């Protein structure tokens, strides 16, 4: 893409999220979401092939429908209290419509069907932006309106998201689809505690962004997008394989690693509110998530799939792909758990 066009598009995308996060007027928040969506639809077609066009069309249709529904909720909201400031509005109807629109933007069940397809159709870096940066603006709006959200519906949608994300990712070999289903599952975990304590949602979002960025950058470094390619990556970048394995274990939520911390805090918050069945269901469903991460770890580090002999000895070229922040991200995805009291004072 033309560098000047790239500059304008990326800055529009960043500016859209900033406008949404810094606004207290409903229309400005909506305008930020629109800017974000329009710029991101262009980013999705970075490599012009039919799959990218299809991914961009599906993304555009889904997000524009959600934008219009959100605008309807904002307009109806203006009827009742007669003001445009983003406060918790006591009107249940408009809160419900707003929540449905934001859930459509985030890609939670029952509106999750577009995420694997759109993540699959784009190269790895726009896929990373889809699963991390695009989640920021809707979650920031939900953070602001959290007292008026209907608890039962949001918790039902979260549990269904965890189930859909876990079961959906089982039969996948394409890595981008696996990461998309893992994103759906993590969204379900995030939205569970929104009505109880939205700071935990923000904290989970931060840890999720760190882990997903690490995973995408590790995949981008070896530029492999299927499980088969991942199985041949052990002699291209030998040092990356254990680190990718540890990142996947952290995403699965295993204890000595960082990914355990947000899940632990979520379960603690839910049990503080006398909610015991939900965390049990959530944990059991997330085990399926851990299963397909373990399958990836098995294929990269623990076994050697049958290949021809010329893939076993590769000429070790120097790495030329830009990998910003790779080392700090890996350290953050694995070693943050002992520092949890310090981190939790910030949230």
């Amino acid at each position, binding site marked *: 893409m033309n560098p000047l066009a790239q500059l304008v598009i990326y800055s529009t995308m960043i500016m859209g999220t900033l406008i949404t996060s810094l606004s207290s007027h409903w*229309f400005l928040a909506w*305008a930020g979401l*629109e800017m974000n*969506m*329009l710029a991101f*639809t*262009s980013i999705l*077609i970075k490599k012009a092939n*039919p*799959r990218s*066009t*299809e*991914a*961009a*069309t*599906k993304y*555009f*249709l889904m997000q*524009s*429908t959600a*934008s*219009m*529904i959100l*605008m*309807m909720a904002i*307009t*109806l909201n*203006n*009827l009742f209290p*007669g003001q*445009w400031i983003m406060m918790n509005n006591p009107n249940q109807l408009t809160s419900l419509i707003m929540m449905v629109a934001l859930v459509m933007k985030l890609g939670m069940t029952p509106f999750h069907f577009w995420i*694997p*397809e*759109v993540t*699959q*159709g784009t190269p790895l870096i726009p896929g990373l932006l889809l699963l991390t940066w695009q989640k920021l603006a809707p979650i920031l709006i939900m953070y602001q309106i959290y007292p008026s959200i209907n608890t039962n519906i949001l918790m039902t949608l979260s549990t269904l998201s965890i189930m859909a994300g876990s079961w959906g990712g089982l*039969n*996948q070999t394409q890595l981008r*689809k696996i990461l998309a289903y893992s994103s759906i599952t993590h969204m379900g975990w995030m939205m569970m505690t929104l009505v109880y304590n939205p700071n935990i949602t923000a904290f989970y979002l931060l840890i999720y962004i760190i882990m997903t960025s690490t995973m995408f950058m590790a995949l981008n470094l070896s530029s492999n997008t299927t499980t088969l390619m991942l199985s041949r990556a052990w002699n291209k970048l030998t040092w990356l394989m254990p680190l990718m394995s540890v990142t996947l274990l952290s995403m699965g939520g295993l204890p000595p690693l960082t990914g355990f911390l947000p899940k632990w805090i979520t379960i603690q918050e839910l049990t503080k509110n006398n909610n015991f069945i939900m965390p049990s269901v959530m944990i059991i469903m997330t085990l399926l998530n851990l299963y397909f991460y373990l399958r990836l770890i098995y294929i990269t580090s623990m076994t050697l799939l049958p290949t021809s002999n010329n893939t076993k000895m590769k000429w070790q070229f120097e790495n030329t792909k830009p990998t910003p922040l790779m080392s700090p991200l890996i350290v953050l995805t694995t070693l943050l758990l002992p520092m949890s009291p310090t981190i939790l004072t910030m949230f």
Partner: protein
Amino acid sequence: MPIIYMNITLAFIISLLGMLIYRSHLMSSLLCLEGMMLSLFIMNTLMALNMHFPLANIMPIALLVFAACEAAVGLALLISISNTYGLDHIHNLNLLQC
């Protein structure tokens, strides 16, 4: 709440259903997107006038700006798809299924 708002909400809901339930063309979904925008425009104008709030007169116009940009992007995507397939049937978009 006066009955006129209910009427325009009904127009919005019909456009929304038209967007979600399509037969074959992508163009009809884009048209229903514009229909939703139009009903929102009318509703915003009515509210800005009925509540005697002149500062909100900019709101429908700004909404129109964003919806026009969206329509342009939608049409550009439609043309991209038309370049690949020759038609804009939605069931052609099946490359990315599992």
